[in-house]
C-alpha cells in the first residue's frame, strides 16, 4: 500500500498505541480521584501537557485536552464570542478555513455577528494589508488557518500576529493548526497566538485526541460544562492514556522535525517532478515545492475527474484524496480552491497527495508510474465526452 492521504489521517505510532493500551489496562484511575492512584493518573496528564507546552513555547497550564480539531475550533470560536460579548461582535476569518471553523462562524453570523473574510491570493496566502484594514475596535476574533489542509499553504503567522496586535491588542488571534502541529515550528509567543487548535490523529496519535492552547490571561468560555475538570474549562473525565499517547506522538514528531521535513520534501519533489515531466496539462494548486508545506501536494490534472482518478489509483493500492477527505463525499467544489480562483474545470481534476515521514521517494516513483498509465486513459474518455 502507498498511503498518500496523511492530511486525512495518519497511522498511529506503535509506541503511542502500546502506551495507550498499557495505561488503559494498568493505570486506569480517574485523575480526579483523591487517592494516590488518582495522583499517578494526574501526573500523566501533567507530563503530557509539559511536552506540548515546550513544543509551542507556552505554559503547561495553558494546554487543554480535547477530542480533536472540530471540538477545538468550535470551542475557540464560540468560547471567544461568549467571553468577549461586551467587546464587540466583529469576527475576521478567511474563505480557506476548514469547515470546523467556517461552520461555527456561520452560526455566529446567524446570531447577529458581523463576519469579514480576508481575501487570499492565488496561492492561498492571506492579504495581510487587507487584514490590517479590516481590524476594528470591535473586532473580537481573527481566526486564520496555520497550514491549509487542501493545499499545504503555510501562512506567515508571525507577521499576521504582529499586524493583529498592533492594530488591536484586544483582538483574540486563533489559529486552526491541525495541519501544522507536528510539521511546522510553532512559537505561540513569537506569533502572538492566543488560541491554537491541534488534532492528534494528524500527527500519528489516535483519533479522538487533541488539544487547545489557550493563553492564560484571556477569557474564553467553556464549550462543555460539568465536573469542573481542566480548571473548569473543559468538563469530562480526563483520559491520561490518550494524553500520554498524544504527547508521545508529538514528541516523536518534533524530535527531528527538520530532518522529517527534508525527507518529506524529497518525496514531494520526486512526485511533482515525475508528474511534471511525464504528464502534460498539470499544475500545482498552492505555492512552489520550496515554499509550501512539504506534507501536501495538490495537483490539478486538466480533463480528469479527480474522483475517478482516486478510484483508479486505489485499484493500484495507492490512496490519495480528492478535495479534503472530510467533505469528499459531497458533490460541491472545493471552497479552498475556489477562493484561490482556480477554475471549476481544474478543481474537478484536483488531487491531494499528502505525506508523512514514513513515505519514501520510491513510493513517489511508483505513484508516478501508475499516474503515467492511468491519466492518459482517463483523459481519452473524458475528452470524448465533450
Amino acid at each position: 500500500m502507498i498511503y498518500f492521504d496523511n492530511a486525512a489521517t495518519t497511522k498511529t505510532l506503535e509506541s503511542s498505541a502500546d502506551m495507550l493500551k498499557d495505561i488503559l489496562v494498568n493505570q486506569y484511575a480517574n485523575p480526579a480521584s483523591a487517592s494516590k492512584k488518582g495522583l499517578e493518573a494526574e501526573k500523566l496528564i501533567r507530563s503530557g501537557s509539559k511536552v506540548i507546552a515546550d513544543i509551542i513555547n507556552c505554559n503547561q497550564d495553558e494546554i487543554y485536552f480535547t477530542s480533536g480539531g472540530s471540538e477545538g475550533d468550535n470551542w475557540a470560536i464560540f468560547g471567544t464570542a461568549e467571553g468577549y460579548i461586551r467587546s464587540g461582535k466583529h469576527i475576521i476569518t478567511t474563505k480557506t478555513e476548514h469547515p470546523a471553523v467556517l461552520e461555527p462562524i456561520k452560526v455566529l453570523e446567524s446570531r447577529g455577528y458581523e463576519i469579514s473574510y480576508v481575501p487570499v491570493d492565488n496561492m492561498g496566502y492571506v492579504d495581510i494589508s487587507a487584514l490590517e484594514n479590516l481590524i476594528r475596535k470591535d473586532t473580537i476574533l481573527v481566526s486564520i488557518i496555520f497550514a491549509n489542509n487542501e493545499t499545504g499553504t503555510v501562512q506567515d503567522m508571525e507577521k499576521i500576529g504582529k499586524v493583529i496586535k498592533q492594530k488591536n491588542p484586544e483582538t483574540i488571534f486563533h489559529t486552526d493548526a491541525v495541519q501544522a502541529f507536528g510539521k511546522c515550528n510553532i512559537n505561540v509567543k513569537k506569533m502572538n497566538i492566543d488560541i491554537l487548535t491541534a488534532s492528534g490523529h494528524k500527527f500519528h496519535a489516535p483519533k479522538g485526541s487533541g488539544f487547545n492552547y489557550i493563553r492564560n490571561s484571556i477569557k474564553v468560555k467553556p464549550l462543555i460544562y460539568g465536573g469542573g475538570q481542566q480548571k473548569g474549562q473543559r468538563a469530562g473525565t480526563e483520559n491520561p492514556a490518550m494524553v500520554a499517547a498524544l504527547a508521545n506522538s508529538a514528541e516523536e514528531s518534533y524530535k527531528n522535525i527538520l530532518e522529517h521535513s527534508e525527507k518529506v520534501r524529497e518525496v514531494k519533489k520526486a512526485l511533482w517532478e515525475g508528474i511534471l515531466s511525464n504528464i502534460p496539462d498539470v499544475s500545482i494548486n498552492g505555492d512552489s515545492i520550496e515554499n509550501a508545506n512539504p506534507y501536501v501536494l495538490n495537483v490539478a490534472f486538466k480533463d480528469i475527474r479527480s474522483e475517478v482518478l482516486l478510484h483508479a489509483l486505489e485499484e493500484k493500492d495507492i490512496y490519495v484524496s480528492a478535495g479534503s477527505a472530510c467533505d469528499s463525499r459531497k458533490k460541491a467544489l472545493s471552497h479552498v480552491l475556489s477562493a484561490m480562483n482556480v477554475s471549476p474545470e481544474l478543481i474537478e481534476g484536483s488531487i491531494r497527495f499528502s505525506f508523512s515521514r514514513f513515505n519514501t521517494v520510491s513510493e513517489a516513483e511508483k505513484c508516478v508510474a501508475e499516474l503515467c498509465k492511468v491519466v492518459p486513459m482517463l483523459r481519452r474518455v473524458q475528452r470524448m465526452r465533450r
Partner: protein
Amino acid sequence: MAEKVLIVKYGEIAMRGNNRHIFTGKLVKAIRKNIDSEGDFYVVKEQGRLIIESRGTEIDFDRIIPKVMPIFGIIALCPGIKTEDQSIENIRSLALEHMKELCSDKTYTFKVETKRSDKRYPMSSREVSADVGGYVFNNMDNLSVDVHNPEIVLNIELRNDAYIYSKLIKTFGGLPVGSSGKAVALLSGGIDSPVAAWSVAKRGVEMEAVYFHSPPYTSEWAKQKVCDLAERLACFTGSIKLHIVPFTDLQLYLLDNVPHDKLTIFLKRAMMRTAQIIAEKENAQGLVTGDSVGQVASQTMQGLHAISAVCTMPVLRPLCGMDKQEIVDIAKKIGTFDISIRPYEDCCTIFVAKHPETKPKTSVIEKIESKLTELDSYIEKAIENTEVVEY
C-alpha cells in the same frame, strides 16, 4: 402459566392447497432469519397461524415486531397472551389483565369474540364471549359494550392452547417468496429499482439482483450502497442473491463504437442481455426494472421499445405508471430511500451525453449494433467475472 407471544397471521397462502406447508415453512425460515439476532425464539405452527414465543425471557414486542413486519405473506401481527390453562376462570382473569394494560387511559367501547377449535370445550364460543365480556366489564369502569362498531375487539381463541389478543397490526401483505417463481431485478443504487424489485417480490416472486459495477468510474462506496439495498430487500424476502457484474470494459467499448447520443440505449440493451443470461442460468423466468415512463431520456416508449427488443423473457416494470413522488413514498415506507440517496454515481450516468437521444428507432439501433462484433464477448467476460453475494 401465561406468557406473551406474537401471533402471526398469514393470508393468501392458506388458499394454496397442498403447497401450504412449503410456504409456511418458508415463512418460518424468513422469520427466524430476521429475529435470530434478537434472542432465542420458538416459531410454532398452530392451525393457520404462526406463534412466536421467546425462550426464557419475556418477548419484547417493540424489537420483534419491526423485524417480522416486512416479511411478505404475513397479513397481520397480534401481540397477545398464550396460556395452557384453558379454564374459564383463568381466561377471565388474563383477559381482564390484558384489557387493563391496554386501555387504562380513556373510555373505550369493546366486544369479545371467541373462536373454539377444541369442540370438547364445555362452553360454546358465544357463552365464553358473554362470560368473559361480562367479567371484564364489571371489573373496569371505563368500558362500554358495542357489538357492531367496537374500538377494541378482545379475541379469545381456544386451540391446543388458549390465546388472548386485541391489537391487530397490519403488515405489507403479499405472498410468501417463492410462491410465484423467480425473477432477476436490475439494481442501480437509485431510488426506483429497489422499489420495483420490492413490488414484484411482494407478489411471491423470488428475487435475485444484478448490479453493474464500473470501477474506477463508480466507487466501492457505490457498490456497498447496492449491497446495503439488497440486504434491506432481504428483510422482506428472506434472502436475496446479488450478482455484481464488472462492466467498465464493456462501457468503454460502447463509448468507442457507438454514437454518443445513443450510448445509454446501447448500454441498457447490453445490461438487459447480461441480466437475461444470468436469469437463465439461475432458472428465473423474468427481469424487473425500475423504469417509469418519461422519467429520463431512455424511458420514452421509443426508448423502452429499443431496449426491450433484446429481451426474450418478460420484463416487469412495476413503476411504469408511477410519478416520482409515489415511488419516493414507497421507498421511504420500505426503508430503501435513505440508502438510495447516498451521493455516489452509478454506472448509467458516468458517460452519459449532454443531449441523449429520446426517440431512438429500434431498427437503427439494431443496425449499428450488428457491427459491434465484440459485444458478445465483452458480455461473456463480464459474466465470467461476476461476483455473487448472498443476503
